[in-house]
């Protein structure tokens, strides 16, 4: 039996911010043009007292309620986020307790963004295939909204908050996680960053100074900064090569893939990446309209919502690609065949 995704559940914060809301708050933002390119009409935003671990906990509870495997057979909990509650302890330790999982569970955090889900799958698959764990609960959740300056159009219009929980274990039904191709280029670290708040540069009155750039976007060093053209250039260069390598490694032709589920950066990026790799538009999952870019949660969210919408069906082959902050990227193949609920 091979390691496979046994099930996915997701959770989004209640509060929704629409393009109309943003237009009313910022009359100078050209929201129609932005919608046309980004494909994003609304995004969910966490409440002030709601964190990524809260969202992840809600998603995980939904998944555990399905009783795909008995809770005592979950041996590892991996929490992937870049929006932790604390410097320490690990959010995964707190989640183990909130979820009522046994004390035998191993738990740790992974600090990755848009590539984090696929990295998490690789770790989980290794644990299951090697017998380290029977089942792994992978929770991916982010609330970038908490880093975003309200007057920074480049990021506020794109990112949404969200969470997903994914159960990985040995499949009895023929699902499988296949090969991986991963990569890192830390030279791109400066292009998507929150500069202050860690130990390298603690938050101070200096870091809180706001600057408005040439394009009219305001932020301080306490906020998320994204060099859009740099990230776009990185993605359109790296992702097609990564997918090509993955297909070669897996001895697959592009036709043998039913669905391409990439990190849901925005519609424009996904359409360009599809064109660049000659992927038919109808095989590329694009699910950003009502949720935006949900960082580490975006791939499992897109898979599960496509399953719920009747698009992805059991037995189909998927190629997943996460890419972004770091720079960090990871791609894998899988056969989608979740386990039935008990």
């Amino acid at each position, binding site marked *: 039996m091979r390691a496979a995704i046994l099930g996915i559940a997701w959770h989004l914060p209640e509060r929704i911010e629409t393009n109309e809301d943003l237009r009313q708050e910022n009359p100078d933002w050209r929201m129609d043009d932005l919608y046309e390119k980004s494909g994003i009409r609304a995004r969910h935003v966490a409440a002030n007292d709601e964190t990524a671990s809260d969202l992840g906990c809600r998603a995980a509870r939904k998944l555990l309620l399905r009783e795909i495997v008995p809770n005592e057979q979950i041996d590892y909990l991996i929490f992937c986020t870049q929006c932790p509650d604390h410097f320490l302890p690990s959010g995964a330790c707190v989640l183990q307790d909130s979820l009522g999982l046994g004390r035998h569970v191993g738990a740790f955090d992974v600090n990755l963004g848009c590539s984090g889900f696929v990295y998490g799958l690789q770790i989980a698959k290794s644990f299951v295939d090697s017998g380290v764990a029977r089942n792994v609960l992978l929770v991916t959740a982010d609330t970038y909204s908490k880093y975003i300056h309200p007057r920074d159009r480049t990021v506020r219009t794109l990112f949404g908050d969200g969470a997903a929980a994914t159960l990985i274990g040995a499949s009895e039904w023929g699902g499988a996680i296949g090969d991986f191709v991963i990569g890192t280029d830390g030279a791109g670290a400066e292009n998507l960053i929150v500069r202050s708040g860690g130990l390298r540069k603690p938050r101070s009155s200096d870091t809180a100074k706001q600057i408005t750039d040439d394009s009219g976007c305001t932020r301080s060093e306490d906020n998320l900064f994204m060099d859009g*053209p*740099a990230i776009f250039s990185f993605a359109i260069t790296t992702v097609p090569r990564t997918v090509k390598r993955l297909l070669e490694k897996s001895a697959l032709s592009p036709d043998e893939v039913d669905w391409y589920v990439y990190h849901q950066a925005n519609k424009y990026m996904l359409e360009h990446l599809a064109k660049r790799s000659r992927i038919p538009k109808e095989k590329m999952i694009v699910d950003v309209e009502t949720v935006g870019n949900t960082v580490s949660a975006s791939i499992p969210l897109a898979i599960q919502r496509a399953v719920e919408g009747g698009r992805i069906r059991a037995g189909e082959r998927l190629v997943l690609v996460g890419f972004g902050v770091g720079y960090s990227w990871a791609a894998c193949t899988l056969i989608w065949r979740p386990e039935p609920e008990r």
Partner: protein
Amino acid sequence: MTVTQFLDVVCEALGREPGSLLLDDTPQSVEQWDSIGHLSIISTVDEALGVEVDDEEMRTFTSIRELTDRLIAKNAFED
């Protein structure tokens, strides 16, 4: 592809009439050349010319002339 043909493709990407871009045009002189417009130009370089766009000089141009000069230096155009 010639420089003129390339400029027409850029016009299309920005939603402008063919022939409406000049070498001296900048983000300030072209209404559609905002942050998204800039991405459209980068994708045109990638797609229409097949030029690698992952280095800084291929994405930090501030005028059409600066871009085409860099592309000429990379032998991206036909004569």
